[in-house]
């Protein structure tokens, strides 16, 4: 499978990465090279093979429902780009 410039732009939109006109070509080329490598997977018969998400097949451990966190807003917001009245500020959210 290979992707073209329009695909790259669509992916850029999904991933919120701007693809400049001058980079689109090179981007598509290098990504297609990687996809060609990855396409070797298609040759393998994986019928009835269960996908493996965790190498050890471990199970989720559960946490007790006890409050363990304290208010550290000041420390967290000290490293934020923009805050006011305890809120994180971002450009206006319009739906």
């Amino acid at each position, binding site marked *: 499978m290979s992707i073209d410039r329009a695909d790259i732009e669509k992916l850029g939109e*999904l991933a*919120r990465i701007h693809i400049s006109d001058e980079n689109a070509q090179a981007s598509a080329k290098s990504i297609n090279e990687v996809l060609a490598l990855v396409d070797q997977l298609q040759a393998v018969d994986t019928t009835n093979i269960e996908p493996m*998400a*965790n190498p050890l097949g*471990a*199970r*989720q*451990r*559960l*946490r*007790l*429902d*006890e*409050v*363990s*966190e304290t*208010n*550290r*807003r000041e420390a*967290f*917001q000290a490293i934020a780009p*923009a805050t*006011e*009245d*305890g*809120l*994180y*500020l*971002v*450009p*206006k*959210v319009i*739906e």
Partner: protein
Amino acid sequence: MTWETVIGLEIHTQLATKTKIFSGASTEFGAAPNTQACAIDLAMPGTLPVLNAEAVRMAVMFGVAIDAEIGLISSFDRKNYFYPDLPKGYQTTQLERPIVLEGAVDIQLDDGSTKTVRIHHAHLEEDAGKSLHEDFHGMSGIDLNRAGTPLIEIVSEPDMNSPEEAVAFAKKLHALVVSIGICDGEMAQGSMRFDVNVSVRKKGEELGTRTETKNLNSFRFMERAIVQEVERQIDLIEDGGKVKQETRLYDGDTHTARSMRSKEEANDYRYFPCPDLLPVEIDQAYVDAVRASLPELPEARRARFTDSYELSAYDAGVLADDVATAAYFETTASQCGDAKLAANWVTGELAARLNSDDVLIQHCPVSAEQLAALIARIIDKTISNKMAREVFGAMWEGEGEPDAIIEARGLKQVSDSGAIEGMVDEVIASSAKQVENYRNADEAKRPKMLGYFVGQIMKASKGQANPQQVNEVLLQKLNALL
């Protein structure tokens, strides 16, 4: 042309855990912005989720309460999209293997019949934060206290055919999750939020294109939104148009919905299994233990109310479905000693006031104990039902205990037979013409003629005469003149 409406619901229910689904930060409502958003909730780099055992237990509890199959192995997936209230850039949810599988809920319709609404599944997921749109120099403010609050999203099959059915279903689920203690049910705080999928079709035809209306956080909004959407779709089709598959957003201020995005613009969420969380495995013994710990369900309570309090099926339904109403009723009934009267008051006067003032019974200004004390004064004939309504009104306004109000307003009913006899004699003496008519009337017509005399007597007593006694004495004296 008859149209059929097809409705399915997705209900986001906040679980009443103490902490977030994946962090140890508090979920308490109303804290100052971002004071309950810890490093995990803020998606600080390198932080990792660990699943809250209580969220799992509550989800399973919901599952056993609706007799659903439980996913003994469930798992979490990442749903990827960018939004400021979603700090990780993905929502951790359950797509492939939810914890609650097919189940069903019965709803009672107004005509007394019962309808089964199937539950497709319910899954665990994390809530998002909140964007505050007040103007901060042209910016939006983000509060992430709510981010990571555990939710179960309950997804119904499209089994409802009217706004009323949808509301009945939503109320039923509300009553259920509150009854079993997994949700506080505070709709105004967003503890339960509805997305409705609506389509219309002509009877017998295939399913129409559906729209999804999001962001409905009250039963009324939901009902209005469905009514509006059904009308919109029918108008559209009758005008030769087509319904577009789209997501619509309901605005509770203007009571209108508008298109948010069409199917073409729909996000590609790129779901995949969350590698930071492992499959959740529970065994049958765990499920059985949760089942054994289930409190009384509304259904069972309804049966008990009909049996032990001899209530009508209708009253039992109204009182038993909501756990807070049921508790209120049972306290009132046991303290006043007359379940039937208690039921009449809770379903009548009390329900009407709660409804007109839009107050939850949890926040009712008149306690069950106070109502019981009021009903006790009806039983011991201190006051009439009519007077009791006046006293209740005063109690609602916070004027205090019923006895004090009765005293202060001089509302004691006159049950002194001597006084009543005197009043009856006076009225008979001053109503010679009416007495004459009564005597000459057919026997069958006489009872109807009593009304005049009773009215006069009650007027003379300023409404305080015991109406039952007045009736007895009057009848006795008039018949003596025959």
